[in-house]
């Protein structure tokens, strides 16, 4: 186990040291600069359309709804079609209201959910240390067309979430994709309607 941990640590250093090193020189765009840009957004909201391709289902599942983010740790996703489901993440506590039932749990106790929504929240908040502690990070593209690929380090989380990709332009997130077990794939397109950036 110790060896594995060292390996993970090494991977982490390799994954993040290069971008941070570059971030120290302001002329070169990198993770530090992206995080800085994103951290400047105080609130954002928009609509989304999502397509889930799951091993359980014969046909992809299409859904749509609204998104709202308030820095640093409020995230709301309301699914309007095909059926209403309300998801709120606040102060590390997730609340899901669907089918007339409300479920509440701490992200810490539900690492499977934390892997996905925690990664999105920490990206929106521009919280590099939080991302580094939970994921190996790969950044590509440029300031106007970036892609952040997050791979969870926790083996428990990896049984459900293999990777998470967030694309964006400047301080705006435009697309979120995630890959799970059995080749499950979720693609979300975000149409930001309002952003409160400095």
């Amino acid at each position, binding site marked *: 186990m110790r060896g594995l941990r060292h390996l993970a640590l090494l991977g982490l250093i390799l994954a993040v040291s290069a971008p941070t090193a570059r971030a120290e020189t302001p002329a070169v765009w990198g993770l530090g600069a992206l995080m800085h840009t994103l951290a400047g957004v105080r609130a954002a909201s928009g609509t989304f359309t*999502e397509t*889930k391709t*799951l*091993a*359980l*289902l*014969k*046909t992809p*599942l299409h*859904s749509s709804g609204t998104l709202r983010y308030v820095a640093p740790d409020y995230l709301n*996703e309301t*699914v309007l079609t*095909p*059926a*209403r*489901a309300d*998801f709120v993440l606040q102060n*590390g*506590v997730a609340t*899901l209201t*669907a*089918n007339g*039932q*409300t*479920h*509440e*749990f*701490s*992200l*810490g*106790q*539900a*690492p*499977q*959910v934390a892997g*996905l*929504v925690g990664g999105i929240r920490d990206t929106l908040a521009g919280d590099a240390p939080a991302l580094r502690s939970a994921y190996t990070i790969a950044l590509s593209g440029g300031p106007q067309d970036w892609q952040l690929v997050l791979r969870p380090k926790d083996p*428990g989380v990896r*049984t*459900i*979430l293999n990777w998470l990709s967030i694309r964006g332009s400047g301080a705006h997130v435009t697309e979120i994709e*995630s890959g*799970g*077990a059995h080749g*499950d794939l*979720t693609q979300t397109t975000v149409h930001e309607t309002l952003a409160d950036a400095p």
Partner: protein
Amino acid sequence: MRRSWLPAGLCLALALLCAVIAARSPYRTDMADFLPHAHSLAQKALDAQVSSGGASRILLLQITGAPAPTLAALSRSLSDRVRRDPAIVDVLNGDGEAMAGMRSFVWRNRFLLSANVRPQSFTAAGLHIALDHDLALLSSPFGAAAAQSLPADPTGLALSLAQRLAGGGGHGPLTEDGAWLSPDGKAALLLLRTRAPGFDIDAQAHALHVIDRDFAAARGSMSGAGGARLQATGPGVFAVDTRDITRRDVTRLSILASAGAILFLLIAYRSPRVLLLGLLPVACGALAATAAVSLAFGFVHAITLGFGVTLIGEAMDYSIYLLTQTLRGDDAGRTLARIWPTLRLGALTSIAGFCTMLLSDFTGFAQLGLFSVAGLIAAAGVTRFVLPALVPAGFFARGADGIGAPLRLLLRGQQQVRVLLAVLVAASLVALLTHRGSMWDDNLLNLSPLPAAAQALDQRLSRELGIPGTRYFVAYHAEGLQNALTISEQLQSVLEPLVQQKALAGYDLPSLVLPSERTQAARRAALPDAATLRANLAAATADTPFRMGIFGPFLEDVAKARAAPLMTPASLPPPLSLRLQSMVMPEGRGWLVLAPLHGVADPALLRTRLAAEAPRGVVFIDLNQQSAALLHTFQHEAVMLAVVGSIAVLLLLCAGLRSLRRVMAVAGPVAAAVTLTAAALTLDGKLSIFMVAGFLLIVALGSNYCLFFAARRGDEPEAWRRALASIMLANLCTVAAYGLLSLSRLPVLHDIGMTVAIGTFLCLVCGAAFSAPPDGRPAP
């Protein structure tokens, strides 16, 4: 002189007997033993919750003083070690592995546990609704997690059970590296359940020792953890701390009080031998008192024993009066003959005052009463029958005269002191009469000996661990366990709509953990056979996006559940078993059920609905109201005791003095002193019930002083001087002993000590100010 050794020999034999009884007596420190016996269901609930309920077994720990990863590692290491000890049933520290046993039990028995298992849930229509719900879940951010359990649990039983079994207790704390952390990340949090209930102090002390030892080992095995610190809180910690404080205070203060009294007596007597003789009535009194309480109650409470310290002040007076009032050239026998009528009346009034405490429902008051009565009788008896013969011939308390000097000074300015006292008493009366209503301290926590910091730590850890504060309960009696579970299920159907209406956030009930056998059997019978289920599932899946054939695990699990045995109390895993035990307690031949309600927003609505819809005998309990009611009973009782005691003292004075004027001369100064004391105490806070017991003591002790101030002594100036010296010496010893008690952190000792020290001193001042010295002029 041969004849005089008979009482001494008898006294020695009795003292030895008492010493044997006292040595064999059990001593208790539990505060619950000091409280009145519970009569109503609500009182029993309070009792059970305070001293033996599930809540009493919970210990909360925090580890601080290291970076978060080290704290998490310490938390895991401590948990692993502590789990091996039988004193600890269960450790929760955020480690998912630790919960695995319980999760797998709930998963395996989900068809027996879930109220959603009904025949209509497994028809084609019922399954279709379930699959629609699943689609909604899948399209939420929870989808990926839901997809995991869906093939085995398309009806979503596990998810609703997880929420249900969280008991409305909300979400847990943050988890990092497999350990719970406080929101600021500076403390690792753990929750432990001990095998022994909170009132079993020895077992709790052992459990705490195990935790400390294992923490030291965990810290020692880890580098960089040297500065880490462990703090524990919870009812068990409180019980152990209270006992330790009681023991320490009682021992330390007894020794200090004795030392103080001995110093004053040495100054007065200038003879170690007479000093020892002077202690004889106290020693015999203490032995007799302990033996009497032990025989009458079967145990002696530590607080009662602590109160024995006060006996030094009271019983010491008798030998002081005898030894100090002996005139030069006189002997102890003749002195006794002279002062005995006054001494006897004084002892009788004290005993009468303490006797009223025997009537109390409050076990503690009754023990204190008996302790004092038995001790005073023994001390007075020894002073009367044993002491005079033992005092060396020609003994004269040479140093006493100087001790009386302050009193003589006061008497010279008697007129001015009288005016000052009259003004002060009038002001005190006005203050007390306008102050009424808010004079009582209604906060039960203030009776606890624990420092505010300990209580604050407890509240913070409870909040951070998401343990809901339990104030409201439903309680009922049931004859058998199945009966208890059936009533619990009926209650569930009353409470659930109230949760929907937001009258409360959640509740825990025994039937949530273990449904009744009848309900379990009905749920098992609701499961269709494999062929029916397969057909229904096929029909339900037809017009949904779900693939056929993915629900194999569901078919398998239903088939298994149809053949599985029902759950019994014995088959529950430890955390659930403990949870059941914390709600269902054996009581007499049946069971007492006590189920907590969380986040109650509308207690009035709950009370009404439960009264209308719940099965007969179910009671809605507000614990705060119960403890406030209990406190009011104490207050009422303490005031009654003080009033009845004062009347008894007055009646005795009337019978003994046979003169209204002389009764007034004794009672007047005492009443003035009590008024002044009450006003002084309310200046700086509120009155506690213990202070009222203190007032009774002021009356008992102060009336003795005033009796000697008022006693006829044939206009002999020398006898007057000796009387003044003896009263002053007696008061010095009393103020020293009670003043020391006021240093105790135990509210009972502190409050009584403070009250009596102030009150008896004021009795001395008032008694002297309103006394009539011989010849009607101040003493020289």
